[in-house]
């Protein structure tokens, strides 16, 4: 029995181990899809939008009569006994329960809930876009780092060959001993670089797996992507993008909705002498919760109105600040994009020159000509550096392009419609 139990535990832990070490091959479209549905932050935001949507129903339904037994009893008591507020007072106390639609503040809360829901949808769109951007950026880095790792391995083989040549020369006295030691040090540094990259790749895989909702330990293998035709790309003009970036920005739209909702809060204060609403405005409406909306007409109403007006102005200023930030980011992105487009040809030429120089040295060695070991090492290092720089600029370009796409909701980011439609259909 004990043996059977032990065997069971062993098989269970083995199956768990095999599950956690599962390797999945993924592509970019799967990343976008999975992050949209599985990412913890996106899902939480979706649930908040769902709450905001249900808040509209709550606000609307609260215009209908409701039953609060103790309120009813105390009102009946006041009516029949003429209590402290008298019979009329008792009846008026019931208005809030029997005819809540007679309180204008409740109507304004319905309108506020509708507007704040739209603000929440924009908030969701912004968060979704940022999460997809982060996940895609990790995917690009994963590809870049994997390609760098391959590159380092290739260069190590190349350097080992040089090491062999130098070693032979040293044996026959054609080269000083110091050179082979230099190469060995370089080989060791390449080993360190490779190990560091492996750790970085593991980290990136783990983070991407987390964002895609895979269990801990899942290893992801990113499928290579088709790189753009860099030669056909031209530089961009910031002015061309400005309209679209401002027009589609969910961050700006969210503030637009809050400014719109502020008008209804002002009306709430204005008509507060007909009663205040006790309904919650939800999470996004929190910006208005600290504003003094008093129940009844008092000497403070004027000041309350001025406070609400100032709050609206604050929101407007915040909106303008966000718009300026969007412009600033856009300018930076377009500059970086243009920098990479402009530099790409330089990097490509550098790789070709470095490769040519190295091949010439090898050719000279084969023909028995004099080549100093230092010359060989320098040429190999130049080749590695130029190749690495070209690789880096190609992926950096992809990242800049994707950030631009996020900013103007283009390409994969157009799928926000699907995400929002899913939300509007009901519970996410």
């Amino acid at each position: 029995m004990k043996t059977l139990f032990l065997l069971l535990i062993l098989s269970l832990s083995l199956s768990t181990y095999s599950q956690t070490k599962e390797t999945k091959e993924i592509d970019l479209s799967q990343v976008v899809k999975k992050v949209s549905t599985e990412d913890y932050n996106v899902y939480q935001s979706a649930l908040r939008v769902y709450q905001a949507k249900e808040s509209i129903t709550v606000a609307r339904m609260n215009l209908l009569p409701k039953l609060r037994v103790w309120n009813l009893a105390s009102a009946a008591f006041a009516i029949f006994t003429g209590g402290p507020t008298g019979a009329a007072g008792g009846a008026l106390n019931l208005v809030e329960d029997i005819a809540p639609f007679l309180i204008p503040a409740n109507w304004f809360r319905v309108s506020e809930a509708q507007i704040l829901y739209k603000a929440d949808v924009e908030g969701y769109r912004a968060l979704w876009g940022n999460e997809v951007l982060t996940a895609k950026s990790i995917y690009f880095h994963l590809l870049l780092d994997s390609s760098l790792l391959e590159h380092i391995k290739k260069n190590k083989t190349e350097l080992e060959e040089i090491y062999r040549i130098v070693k032979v020369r040293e044996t026959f006295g054609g080269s000083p001993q110091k050179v082979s030691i230099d190469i060995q040090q370089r080989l060791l540094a390449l080993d360190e670089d490779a190990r560091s990259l492996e750790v970085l790749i593991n980290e990136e895989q783990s983070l991407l797996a987390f964002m895609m909702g895979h269990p801990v330990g899942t290893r992801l293998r990113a499928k290579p992507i088709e790189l753009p035709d860099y030669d056909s790309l031209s530089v961009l003009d910031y002015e061309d993008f400005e309209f679209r970036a401002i027009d589609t920005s969910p961050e700006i739209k969210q503030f637009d909705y809050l400014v719109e909702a502020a008008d209804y809060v002002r009306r709430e204060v204005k008509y507060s002498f007909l009663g205040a609403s006790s309904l919650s405005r939800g999470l996004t409406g929190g910006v208005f919760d600290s504003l003094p909306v008093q129940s009844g007409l008092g000497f403070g109403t004027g000041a309350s109105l001025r406070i609400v007006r100032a709050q609206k102005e604050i929101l407007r200023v915040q909106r303008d600040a966000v718009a300026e930030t969007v412009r600033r980011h856009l300018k930076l992105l377009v500059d970086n994009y243009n920098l990479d487009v402009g530099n790409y040809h330089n990097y490509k030429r550098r790789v070709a020159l470095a490769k040519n120089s190295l091949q010439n040295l090898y050719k000279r060695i084969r023909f028995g000509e004099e080549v100093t070991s230092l010359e060989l090492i320098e040429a190999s290092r130049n080749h590695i550096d130029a190749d690495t720089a070209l690789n880096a600029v190609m992926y950096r370009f992809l990242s800049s392009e994707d950030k631009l796409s996020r900013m103007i909701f283009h390409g994969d980011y157009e799928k926000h419609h699907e995400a929002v439609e899913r939300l509007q259909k009901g519970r996410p």
Partner: protein
Amino acid sequence: MKFFSLLLMLVSLSAFSQELPEPRVNSLAEQRSSVEALLSKRSYSLEEHRTIKDYFKELESLVDDLENFSRYRRRFFRFTRDFGVEEFCRSTYLEEALWLRLQENCTQNGFFLCSESVRAYPALKGRIEAIADTDLRPEFGTSEFCR
């Protein structure tokens, strides 16, 4: 009592002016002409982008009203019948070839830079056709300017 009647009259007048299809169609026709005037350009300033957006947004708002308010829909298609479906499309719709050119102008290095409503244009036309009165629908589907 007088005040109440005045208020009622004002409310009904404002509602009436909102629902008149003719001024709306004329305004749309003007906006369409403004967009057409921009088609010779390859890139647009902020102001020009707004002009383009205003036209497509106005068309979208018209479709929304037609879908949501049955009374307005009836009045609107009665007007369209008198005005002529083809004439309505000719004056308010952007020809398909011109819309394609606009799409091209709006695209740079693969990025779409105009308002999103530009791309929704064919869908908008489809929505108008779908809610049109049954006798008008075939004309919306076949007329050269409506397609």
